């Protein structure tokens, strides 16, 4: 499942996508993110019949992604994003 967390507003589309079929719940993204955007839960509330842990974007961060992700996204010379780099399974992507 592609889980898109975020929002669209007048300034653009801001979504973090987690591919839950690739995610193995390893928590690497949780420790890589300085703003605690990710959490790993034992039961996926979007897929009650799945039994494995899975990463999600924390509920209190979903509507603030432009602000909390801001520090990792300078306008010029953008380094690789820590969360995307940390995810060995390649499950995380950003829309902006």
């Amino acid at each position, binding site marked *: *499942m*592609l*889980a*898109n967390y975020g*929002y*669209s*507003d*007048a300034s653009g*589309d801001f*979504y973090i996508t987690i591919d839950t079929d690739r995610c193995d719940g390893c928590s690497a993204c949780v420790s890589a993110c300085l703003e605690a955007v990710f959490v790993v839960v034992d039961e996926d*509330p*979007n*897929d*009650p*019949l799945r039994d494995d842990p899975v990463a999600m974007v924390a509920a209190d961060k979903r*509507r603030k992604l432009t602000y909390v992700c801001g520090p990792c996204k300078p306008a010029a010379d953008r380094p690789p994003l820590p969360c995307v780099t940390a995810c060995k399974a390649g499950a995380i992507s950003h829309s902006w």
Partner: protein
Amino acid sequence: MAEQKSETFWQWTECNWKDPDVGWKDARFITVGIDVGSVSSQACIMADGKIFAYGNMRTGSDSPTSARNALDFALKVTDLPEERMDYCVGTGYGRVNVPFADRTVTEIACHARGANFMYGPKVRTVLDVGGQDIKVIQCDEKGKVMNFLMNDKCAAGTGRGMEVFADLLGVSITDVGDRSFQYDGAEPDAVSNTCVIYAKSEATGLLRSGWTTEQVLAAYCRAMAERIFSLIKRLGIEPEFAVTGGMAKNRGVMGRLMTMISLERMETHWDTQIAGAVGAALFGHALCQRGKGRR
């Protein structure tokens, strides 16, 4: 002497229903789904995965009470004792506030599952326009979510936005769809589709400059359809296409949206507002079958 008058136009009709052909006495599992949304709350009682009864009410200020009331409203038309319930799943905005729920599931999963039940396994894209958010979900033939997107940051394009307009224009919420087509000449341009408050002030301006109520309704229905369309486009539209939530009953928005998508939407005889509760009850049933129920 003072006189006070109060009239509201946004209120839709609450209802409950029981299937006379489904019995609970021989059922192996009685499961209940409770969907406490921001505007409406539903309870769906299922006997072995078949809809036995449901109740559909407005959400009050207190989620636990709303959940209780919706369940009582559904139980009222049946002779089912509440103790007979095997499992209860809560969903929707107020899902963590359903005191008698055994488990919570997000409304994303529930709407996909509910749409799969109500519209059949051919559904691939589900649009849910709720009271306070819009969800676009792609699912497989079993109703499992494959891709989803939700906008709950802003009320533009939501059911509550339409209620605000119904009240502003003094048109009953159930008549908005039909009235939005009853004007002469060309269709007016859409009002602002990024903010309900701005759209409302724009509409007031249009009324002042001589537009008819019907033209303003048309302009707002178009704005809502555009807003919803921009979200759907992001995810992509795979047929068959189904709509759940209260907005599915609004021909003014849905008619304009379907022209933009150039697809037909699927039909159902079920009340589109109960999709979340249906999905929740189905998950309860699936969990019971897998031996993950209460007992």
